[in-house]
């Protein structure tokens, strides 16, 4: 075969499988492959190449992986000076477990790949196992667990955890005395057997820690990161991360961490949705219906069942992205006495689904409906922040965004989303160019959340305004604070520019 022919065929074979060959090209190639060994080898290889996407890079040691992740989150470039590795969020865990066990716990926590490369970390696992034996505790860490409906994950003793399909948890069994679940998103229901004094079971969310004695309860982190706790049996202790306040939630009560209401009686719907997740609701419905048939008329029973359907159908339609249909079912639910209380939550979910489809106009309309019609619900309050973010980021209307952020901050001044609302407000003011209000907002934020997630951004805003108004001394103070606290961040670069503009370095 001619070299030119081989070159032509090999170029065609090198095309990605997504690209089409013309019919006559295919014929020429097939003919050529029958006589040319080199090109038929190439063809075989190009077929095999489709599988290469499945390959992953060789394993890095779990310690190294953990270190890179921690460094990345804290903005540390390779080789930059490091603080003690176990500072910050791990400290309290170690305090609980005691100094002797601390080494082992740290060892396991920094072992995030445990579920990934079964075989590869065998040696490491044996090392850990050996260490554990000598310390008489059996800690385990599982990251990013997801759930199937009605199928609990079984823990030690008879403890069980159910989760919604989009729930995401990290599970850390730290010792016989301490089990800790980190809930990142979604809702879980936990059944915990009675504990002896000194034994602890905890669920940690963004809002705080839920401590358990022996009980059934659910914890939910909703789409805005707000954490809700509901108790089906027994009671739990909830520790608010931000205020440090501890409250007790007892049977059939619920608490939204960060709102001012404290523990309130949970609605039947919500308690039922937890039972449904556990798979114990069906029996309850049937027994309730048996009771109904005795005491109530059949017609009434039927109507309550259709109403039940409206909420369910709306939820299902949202999940399957049939949003117009979902809207109709929500209207049906609105007409019903027993289900109108589900409507705010359904509207919030619907708006979110529209936003995911980038149908921002529809999302905006639904949020406005929710805020207008159900102004006193938590869903509506949260919707103000969601809508404001939408106006600011997707719709480019900083003035409208500002109004909603302000309304939220005025109506729920110490609400869970106030930090988010304040940074949103600052960004909107920045876009509008209202420096005096931006200055006030950053001051306000820094006074309230000096160690908050957006402190560096707020310090930068304040420093820049100081600098522009000629108050170099104050500007330097803010810029230097950024450089000391986040030395490798982009904000630090901007702060250094600010310092230079002030004439010092």
């Amino acid at each position: 075969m001619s070299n030119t022919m081989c070159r032509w065929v090999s170029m065609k074979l090198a095309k990605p499988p997504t690209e089409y060959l013309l019919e006559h090209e295919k014929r020429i190639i097939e003919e050529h492959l029958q006589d040319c060994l080199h090109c038929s080898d190439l063809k075989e290889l190009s077929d095999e190449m489709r599988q290469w996407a499945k390959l992953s890079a060789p394993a890095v040691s779990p310690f190294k992986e953990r270190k890179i992740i921690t460094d990345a989150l804290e903005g540390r470039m390779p080789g930059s000076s490091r603080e003690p590795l176990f500072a910050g969020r791990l400290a309290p865990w170690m305090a609980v477990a005691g100094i002797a066990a601390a080494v082992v716990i740290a060892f396991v926590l920094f072992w995030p790949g445990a579920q990934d490369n079964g075989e590869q970390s065998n040696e490491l696992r044996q090392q850990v196992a050996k260490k554990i034996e000598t310390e008489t505790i059996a800690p385990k860490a599982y990251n990013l667990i997801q759930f199937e409906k009605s199928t609990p994950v079984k823990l030690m003793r008879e403890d069980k955890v159910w989760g919604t399909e989009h729930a995401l948890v990290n599970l850390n069994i730290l010792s016989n005395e301490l089990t800790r679940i980190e809930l990142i998103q979604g809702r879980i229901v936990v059944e915990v057997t009675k504990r002896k004094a000194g034994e602890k079971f905890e669920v940690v969310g963004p809002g705080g820690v839920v401590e358990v004695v022996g009980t059934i309860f659910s914890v939910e982190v909703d789409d805005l990161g707000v954490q809700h706790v509901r108790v089906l049996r027994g009671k739990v202790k909830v520790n608010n991360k931000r205020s440090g306040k501890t409250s007790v939630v007892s049977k059939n009560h619920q608490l939204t961490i960060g709102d001012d209401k404290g523990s309130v009686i949970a609605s039947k719907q919500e308690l039922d949705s937890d039972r449904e997740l556990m798979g114990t609701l069906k029996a309850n419905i049937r027994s309730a219906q048996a009771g109904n048939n005795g005491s109530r008329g059949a017609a009434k029973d039927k109507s309550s069942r259709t109403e039940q359907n409206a909420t369910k159908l709306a939820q299902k339609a949202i999940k399957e992205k049939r949003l117009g249909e979902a809207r109709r079912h929500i209207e049906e639910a609105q007409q019903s006495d027993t289900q109108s209380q589900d409507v705010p939550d359904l509207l919030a979910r619907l708006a979110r689904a529209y936003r995911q489809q980038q149908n921002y106009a529809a999302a905006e309309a639904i949020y406005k409906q929710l805020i207008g019609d159900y102004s006193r619900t938590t869903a509506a309050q949260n919707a103000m922040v969601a809508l404001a973010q939408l106006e600011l980021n997707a719709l480019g209307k900083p003035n409208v965004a500002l109004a909603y952020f302000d309304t939220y901050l005025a109506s729920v001044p110490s609400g869970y989303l106030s930090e988010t609302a304040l940074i949103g407000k600052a960004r909107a003011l920045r876009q509008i160019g209202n420096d005096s209000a931006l200055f006030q907002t950053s001051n306000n934020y820094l006074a309230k959340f000096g160690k908050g997630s957006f402190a560096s951004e707020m310090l930068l805003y304040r420093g820049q305004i100081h600098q522009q108004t000629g108050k170099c001394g104050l500007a330097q103070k803010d810029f230097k604070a950024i450089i000391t606290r986040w030395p490798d961040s982009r904000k630090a670069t901007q702060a250094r520019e600010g310092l230079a503009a002030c004439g010092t370095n």
Partner: protein
Amino acid sequence: MHTVQAKTQGNKTEILKNAELVERAVSGDPMAREALAVAAFPRVRKLVYLSYGNRYDIDDVTQIAMVTVFRDLPGLRNYDRFTAWLDTVVYNVVRTQGRKRIRFTSLFADADPSQDSRHWDITPEDEQVGHQLINLLQHHLNRIAPRKRNAAVMSIFFGYVDSEVAQIMDCSVETAKKRIQHGRKELMERVLKDPGCSGLLKEAFQ
């Protein structure tokens, strides 16, 4: 506890597609940021490993890429396309880091020991066939010119089509097309000439 292990398989890819979680991470929620970092790490490392073109400082470049990703994350707007954004950021880190390295090592053209010691860094953990194969592929990729190499990596190992590669590499679709095709061809021919490959290819995907 085996049930737990089974449930965590394959979640990392799904997490990268979870627009809600990404949105929360963008707005600064520390738990969401951490979940995203854990899920993104294997992908970032794979892209660096295959496209950086050298074996020496892969861990450092991975860290620089991760730092850059989480530094720039607050600027992400399209939460549904996190992976494409992630790969673009990582690609740009790889490109600038690679350029720095070339400027430095070109003074000592033959001093790069990776040139002739293909298996020098295989540890016992890598003895799995899949890892031997990717090691071998990396070895051959390292010998292809950077632009062609990176286009081929995006196409073969990350499944991007030409228009997407054009976006990530910031070039025209026609250019991307050519780079992909030439990169793939060069890699295929290098692999075919390597007698160590044929056995591995068959074993790896049985």
